[in-house]
């Protein structure tokens, strides 16, 4: 990738006016100017030049922008897997095609990676040789003066009474004070300024590479974990503690920074319109071997343990559920975390799974071969299975009932809590070894329990329970809150930040600094006086250079004072009509 505005400015300049400027350049010659090399090496070289050309870079940048668009318009697995699933339900055919194209994982898709990989190869192919060239240019003197200054975009002449050598030396000192790199060769001064432009340019592109490397290291060696902590629960940083744990490809599970976090209390406050005001998770945090300290964990204020950080990323309600048998004994009791369905009103749903009630119920068995149905064992005793219950609870912290949608919530805080209970019985499938989520319920093999509508709504803590089967009842005795924490460890974060800072610094250099060259030649004019010629050339955005040049000439004329009465001088030198004021 060619990364600089200079070269093309010059190409454009050369195209527009005289061909002089390209000869004065230290830029690489245009690609086409080299004789083509035959054979496979020549082919590879040509391919490499194509790849590292500005046009290719431009095309790849456009492609990169276009490739990102589906990632923002379609739901992405990494951000909202539930919405991806929803999309599959809504548009099953389209979703399958999109999935084939990795459009639900756009930014991890092979074709996306291919675009930026080629872009970065192209970038390397440009940064490396240009850095070498720039280093050489910085070590070398500014290039020597051209023979005819009038061919330069800017030039001026005057005569002075000073001897040529002295005039040149004075001019050089004057230019140095203006922070030009000025070199004196006899009575000719070559000066250049604005090297920071190319430095910034290269810095910017090199920092982009470092940034990508940092992002790569972070995703290879870091990890992300999420954990739902109920009030009073604590958690120790280990892969097995997490509800969801995503390690990088090279993360070792034993290297997680050791710490413990206990949630004492979660507190949320809301505006009167339901907008969230504050979220505070009061936790006890302890490093391994360190003392425990109380921390108010808030959004924007994570706890740091080494390069791992603990964030508060969500919260929700917990229902205390009790299932009792006919004798009134609690057979299931536990805090059930509810997943918010609506993040504004906190209408939530929770799943209760009670696989062990201590009771059994008669069942039957159908032989898959013969189709015969058995209701007794071989010994004639009735065939039974353990009685299992499952319930889907809908919880509204501030309840209202809508004729179309049933239970809704109107405010996220608990002011009028109601739970609507839907219950099931049958084999929950918890013993067959297949993993299941505790937050979802597959009801395909379950039998719904008919509950009269009037009985299915309960107020937590009211003591009025919902009747299930076989004399069992389900009661919600209390509401509390949980907090969702995220732990993120990214060992390369510092590197990425430094690269980002260098990107901005480099950009400022490459966009704000202008690079220009100036030459001055002092020659005895044969009448005892000295003819001073000055020529200048801007190597970047040149629109202001004419003005700057006039200012510089004014300055130089101050250092090398013009003779009071010039004789016949260069002022009469014919103007070169081919050289326009190269703006």
């Amino acid at each position, binding site marked *: 990738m060619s990364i600089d505005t200079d070269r093309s400015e010059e190409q454009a300049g050369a195209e*527009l006016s005289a061909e002089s400027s390209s000869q004065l350049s230290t830029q690489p010659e245009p690609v086409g100017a080299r004789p083509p090399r035959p054979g496979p090496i020549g082919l590879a070289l040509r391919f490499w030049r194509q790849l590292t050309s500005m046009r290719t870079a431009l095309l790849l940048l456009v492609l990169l922008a276009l490739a990102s668009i589906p990632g*923002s318009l379609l739901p992405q697995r990494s951000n909202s897997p539930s919405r991806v699933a929803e999309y599959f339900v809504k548009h099953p055919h389209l979703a399958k095609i999109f999935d084939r194209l990795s459009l639900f994982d756009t930014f991890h898709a092979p074709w996306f990676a291919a675009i930026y990989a080629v872009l970065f190869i192209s970038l390397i192919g440009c940064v490396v040789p240009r850095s070498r060239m720039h280093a050489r240019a910085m070590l070398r003197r500014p290039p020597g003066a051209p023979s005819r200054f009038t061919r330069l975009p800017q*030039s001026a002449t005057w005569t002075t009474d000073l001897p040529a050598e002295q005039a040149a030396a004075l001019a050089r000192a004057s230019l140095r004070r203006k922070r030009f790199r000025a070199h004196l060769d006899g009575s000719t001064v070559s000066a250049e300024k604005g090297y920071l432009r190319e430095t910034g340019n290269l810095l910017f592109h090199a920092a982009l590479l470092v940034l990508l490397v940092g992002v790569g290291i972070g995703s290879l060696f870091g990890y992300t974990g999420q954990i739902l902590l109920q009030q009073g629960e604590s958690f120790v940083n280990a892969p097995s503690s997490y509800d969801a744990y995503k390690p990088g490809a090279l993360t070792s599970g034993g290297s997680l920074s050791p710490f413990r976090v206990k949630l004492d209390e979660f507190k949320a406050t809301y505006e009167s319109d339901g907008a969230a005001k504050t*979220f505070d998770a009061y936790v006890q945090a302890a490093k391994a071997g360190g003392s425990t300290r109380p921390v108010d964990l808030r959004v*924007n204020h994570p706890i740091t343990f080494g390069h791992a950080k603990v964030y508060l990323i969500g919260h929700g309600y917990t229902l205390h559920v009790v299932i009792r048998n006919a004798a009134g004994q609690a057979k299931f009791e536990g805090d059930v975390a509810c997943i918010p369905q609506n993040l504004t009103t906190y209408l939530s749903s929770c799943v209760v799974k009670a696989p062990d009630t201590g009771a059994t119920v008669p069942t039957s068995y159908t032989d898959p071969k013969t189709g015969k149905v058995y209701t007794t064992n071989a010994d004639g005793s009735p065939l039974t299975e353990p009685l299992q219950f499952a319930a889907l609870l809908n919880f509204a912290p501030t309840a209202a009932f809508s004729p179309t949608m049933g239970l809704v919530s109107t405010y996220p805080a608990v002011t009028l809590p109601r739970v609507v209970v839907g219950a099931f019985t049958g084999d929950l499938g918890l013993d067959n070894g297949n993993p299941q989520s505790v937050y979802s319920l597959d009801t395909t093999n379950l039998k719904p329990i008919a509950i009269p509508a009037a009985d299915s709504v309960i107020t937590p803590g009211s003591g009025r329970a919902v009747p299930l089967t076989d004399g069992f009842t389900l009661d919600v005795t209390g509401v509390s809150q949980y907090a969702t924490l995220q732990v993120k460890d990214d060992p390369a974060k510092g590197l990425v930040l430094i690269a980002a800072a260098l990107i901005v610094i480099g950009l400022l250099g490459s966009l704000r600094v202008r690079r220009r060259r100036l030459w001055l030649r002092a020659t005895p004019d044969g009448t005892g006086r000295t003819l*001073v010629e000055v020529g200048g050339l801007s190597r970047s955005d040149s629109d202001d250079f004419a*003005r700057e040049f*006039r200012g510089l*000439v004014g300055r130089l004329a101050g250092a090398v004072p013009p003779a009071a009465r010039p004789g016949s001088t260069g002022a009469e030198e014919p103007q070169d009509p081919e050289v*326009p004021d190269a703006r």
Partner: protein
Amino acid sequence: MPVDVGFAHASDRLLFAAVLVYALAVLGYAFAFAFGRAGRAAIRAEQDAALRTEAALRRTAGPAAARAAAAQSRVLVGAGAPFDTAGPGSAEPAGPVFADGSTLTAQDVRPRRGPSRSEWDGGPPRAQSASTSAAVRRTAQLAVVLTLIGWALHVGSVICRGFAAHRAPWGNMYEFSSMIALIAVTAYLALMVRYPVRDLGVFVMIPVVAYLGVAGTVLYVPAGPLVPALHSYWIVIHVLAATSATGIFVVSAVANVLFLVRDRHDRLILRGAEPRFTRFARALPPAQSLDTLSYRVCAFAFPIWTFAIIAGAIWAESAWGRYWGWDPKETWSFITWVVFACYLHARATVGWRGRRAAYLALIGFTCFLFDFYGVNMWISGLHSYAGL
């Protein structure tokens, strides 16, 4: 803390007053643009003539000859300029003589920043004001003064909003929009110090007034507190940088549109066609000046935009636990950044400069608008709380 109703009302009224004063300024700029054309038209008729000559030469003698002739005519016109005291035959100057035959002036020793009127107009220096009537000039000056007054009211509105809500006044769509408009006006006023862009006021201020109108009606929300995710000092840094970059890009986009209009006109003239709206196009500055202007403004805003994205990433790291997660807002910021990177590269690529680059910049600006509004309206993501 409850909303300070007094400040909230003051903010709303000040914005209304600002829009009103801006609207008056638009009238002034429009008047000056419409009736000040006569002065500029003289210069530009000359430019058209030069273009036609060049076109004719190109047909008969080839492009190289045409370029040379055009260059020569420019030099000759320059040499005949009234500021030039060192014509051949006159007293020999004591100081340096430049390639175009001119000598140093007091202005050169202490050069002003930004192009002079003649550089901007691409013609020889001349007394511009002589051909513009005093009434037109006064109106234009009045429009600038009105813009300044409107700007002060606008600043007052934003500050009051901050006091009303006890926070940085850029927490929702309405507040962003007001900020972006304010930055656009600020950028235009700052530009006027260096560039002779007073004539273009109407093109900057009409979008600003329309934009503020939409912001104050459709997007308006009363002052209020923010959700906890926004309780961070990064809101000051990130949103200020993002709105600043956008506001400055507005000015660049305006210059780009004008460039395309003028460029199309010039190309048609070169082809020998008689373009429509020629009087309008001729009243615009030369394509070259507009192109440079939009590029410079863009090159100024691009690092700010880069910084805004980085600041957003730092904030995201502390709020959401990752610095980059391809949230729709992040994705569109990235797309915008890449398109502008394309534009900057295109400016440096032969065959892409000028018209194609200008289209790229306008696509980039459209991406900006989508990033700021479309993402919030149509795509759900982590930035959705910005509300609409």
